[in-house]
Every structure is written in C-alpha cells, then in structure tokens.
C-alpha cells in the first residue's frame, strides 16, 4: 500500500473504527485492514505493558508501608527521569523533590490511615513522582503511571509541588482511575475533577488536622506568585472567587446548577463545572461538622468505590449515590440529610 493511502499511519483507532462502520465501501475496507494492523500493534503494546506492570507489582510494599520514588526530569521531558530520593532516604536539599516526597507521604497517610487504602491501587503500588519537568513548565498531571510536576514560569506560577493539595489532587487522579472509568468530559469529567479536589483538600486538612471550620477550602494556595491577583486555583467554599486578574481572567467556576457552563473547551468544562460538586462537598462537610475526612470524606470515598458509580455518571446520579452511601454508613440521620441538602442547595437535586 502506498504510504499516502495507509490509513493506520495517520488516523487514530477511534476514527478508524468510525470509518470501518460508516465510511464508503472502499474506505470501510481500508479502515478494517488498518484496524486489524492496529489491533496487532495494540496486542504487542499490551504485552509490553503487562511486563511493566509485573515489574511494578514486584516492588509493591506490605500494607501500611509506603514506597516513594522521586525523580528529576532535569528540565527535560523524559519520564520518570533520574531518581533523586527513594523511600527512607534523607532530604536532598532540592525543595521541589523534598516537597513531592513529603506530600506524596501525606497523601498516602490520608488514604491508608483514614480509608485503609494501601496506595493508588489499594495493593501498595509505588508512588512515582517527577519534578523539574520541562522548562518553566506550568502544570502538574497524572499520566496513568506517575505524578509529574513543573517548576512554573516564576512570573505567574510557582513550582507545582508548593501546594500539598495539588500533589494530593494528582495522586487522587490515580486512585480515581483505579476505581472508575468516569468519562473525562462534561459532568462525568467534572465529577472526576471534583473528586480529585475533594481528596486533595482532605489531604491538606488531615495533614494540618484542621476541622471544617479551620479549613480554608481553597485548592492550590501558594501556586500563584505575588504578581497576580489570585488566592488559589479554586475555592470549594465559594467557586468563582479564587482569582480575578488580567493575566488569568476571572475564575469561571459556578457553584450552582443555574450557572452551569456549557462549553466545548476544557473537555466540556471539567475544571469549570467541578465547582458545583466541590461546593456540595463543602456544604455537606460543614453541615456534618468535625473533621471532613471522618464522615463526609468517608461518604465520598465509598461512593467513588461503589459499583453504582457508572462511567457516564452525571451530577444527579452521583448525588443520589452519596445520599445512599450516607444512609448505608450512618443510617437516616444528620449525615444523610446534610448530604442530601447540600446537593439541593447547589441545584443538582430538588
């Protein structure tokens, strides 16, 4: 086949699949041939992936025992990069590396001590982090295998390890991914992001031993430099109030369904509309009182792990699930009523 006619060379599998089903006859044949080739390649990749998983499993630790591995990308993009601090080793003097090590530890503590979850997969998966990723890189992410943190540009963003809840947020993406396949778009994607914020703030509150009244309910404090008018990336208490600056724009998060943002940007507003379930969690936690990780955190965690959480769950389905879980855990009482009222107050259920 001529290179210009090789569909597998240029079209991603989901498009090939679409063409194979819906294209013209000749196109369907080409797409089906290409899919067959693509499937062969995928099988090979899966085999390689299994080998990689086997290696990771071999390093898994006994329950309650954390295993952190912090690397540096040395301003490059190769992952995981060079190992600079393994579990039990002394501080390195590299602020980002030591923050990553400490905050990965704080995140592990929350999941183990509060929810009895042994790392990301519940089976002791080592926590792999890479700092100094890219040049002035303005982001942090979970890539399906590890956490990655940029240094920020120093003008708008500080280093991304500066905020404990951002480290917790990224690790929580790993936990979420192991428990559910929430589609990363629209309301299910916003639930995905909100859950990462919920566990991110719980890491912060548990580490500081802050009650719901003491907590600031902000995500990413310290991430912005003093050059911009911003207190944080997001506010769970008052979505839409975290920043207002010419360089950043105004925080677009809604805190109520009447202000839901219908957009094609940001995977359908996953980091925008997450403000609604974020505020629901804040309202439930403050109504129940005490320490957020004890009851409201437990309810959200059990909901995340519940088989009833579908990949395409929307806000109202997740709301119903949390109300059910609250009743299952604590009976019909203040917990269940507080959770239900929180979702009513943000306009998700009537």
């Amino acid at each position, binding site marked *: 086949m001529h290179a210009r006619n090789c569909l597998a060379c240029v079209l991603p599998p989901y498009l090939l699949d679409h063409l194979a089903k819906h294209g013209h006859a000749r196109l369907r044949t080409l797409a089906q041939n290409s899919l067959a080739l693509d499937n062969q390649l995928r099988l090979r990749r899966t085999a390689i992936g299994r080998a990689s998983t086997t290696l990771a499993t071999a390093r898994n630790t006994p329950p309650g025992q954390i295993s952190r591995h912090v690397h540096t990308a040395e301003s490059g993009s190769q992952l995981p990069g060079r190992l600079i601090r393994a579990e039990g080793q002394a501080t390195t003097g590299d602020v980002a590396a030591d923050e990553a090590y400490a905050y990965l530890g704080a995140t592990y503590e929350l999941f183990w001590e509060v929810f009895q979850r042994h790392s990301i997969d519940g089976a002791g998966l080592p926590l792999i982090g890479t700092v100094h990723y890219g040049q002035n890189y303005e982001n942090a992410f979970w890539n399906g295998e590890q956490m990655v943190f940029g240094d920020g540009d120093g003008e708008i963003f500080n280093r991304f390890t500066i905020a404990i809840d951002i480290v917790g947020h990224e690790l929580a993406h790993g936990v979420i991914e192991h428990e559910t396949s929430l589609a990363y778009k629209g309301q299910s994607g916003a639930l995905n992001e909100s859950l990462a914020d919920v566990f991110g703030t719980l890491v912060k509150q548990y580490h500081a031993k802050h009650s719901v009244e003491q907590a600031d309910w902000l995500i990413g404090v310290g991430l912005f430099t003093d050059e911009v008018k911003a207190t944080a990336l997001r506010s769970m208490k008052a979505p839409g109030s975290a920043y207002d600056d010419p*360089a950043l724009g105004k925080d677009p998060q809604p805190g109520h369904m009447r202000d839901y943002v219908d957009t094609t940007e940001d995977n359908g507003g996953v980091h925008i509309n997450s403000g609604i379930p974020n505020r629901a969690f804040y309202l439930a936690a403050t109504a129940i009182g005490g320490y957020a990780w004890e009851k409201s955190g437990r309810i959200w965690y059990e909901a995340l792990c519940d088989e009833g959480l579908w990949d395409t769950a929307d806000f109202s389905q997740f709301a119903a699930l949390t109300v059910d879980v609250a009743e299952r855990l604590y009976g019909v009482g203040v917990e269940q009523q507080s959770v239900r009222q929180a979702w009513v107050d943000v306009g998700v259920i009537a």
Partner: protein
Amino acid sequence: MSTLPPLDQATQINLSREGGVAFLPGQRNSCSIALGSCSEDERARIRQALLSAAPKAQAADEAGRGDQRYFVILINFNDDAATEDVRLHVGEQEAPEELIRLWRERTGRR
C-alpha cells in the same frame, strides 16, 4: 483516499492547547493558520506536522485525563468535495516535535 484530504489553499488550521490542572480563561491560547497565505515551504512543513500528529490522536474524552495538556487541531476544508472538518486531540506528551515547533512559532508560547 489520501492520508489526509489535500491541504490546499482553501484550508484553514486552528491549533489550540487545552487541559492542565485548571482552566484559566486568561491563559487560553490558540492560533489560526490560513494556508492560502503560506508559502509552499510553510505548507509542506505544516502538512508534515499534521501527518505526524494524526496517528497520535486520542478520543476527545481521553485527551486531558489526569490534567494532562493536549493540542486540539481543527482542519477546515473548503473544497468541491465538501470534505468534513477534521478535529484531532493530541496529548502533549505524545505530540511530535513538528507540531510543538509549529505551536511555539505561531503562538510564541513555550
């Protein structure tokens, strides 16, 4: 059937970078390239960037997962065959160097 429909002078490319740990309206960044105003060399370079990027494309609800950044490439066709627009989502980590270079040149962003 060619790899991509011909990128003739009636074609426009819209390139944006999305995703990340937050959506910051003031940090939106995108560029539009009217291929009709490009030299032959430029068109060839852009075509190569698109050909390199297309096999890396992900489904829309996979791109960006876990706060990863990604490129959105929208190719508009305005030809006699009424070719439908093509939209591709390419993860930043998977993006070919040609696409990243094109992005940096056109937006001035890192």
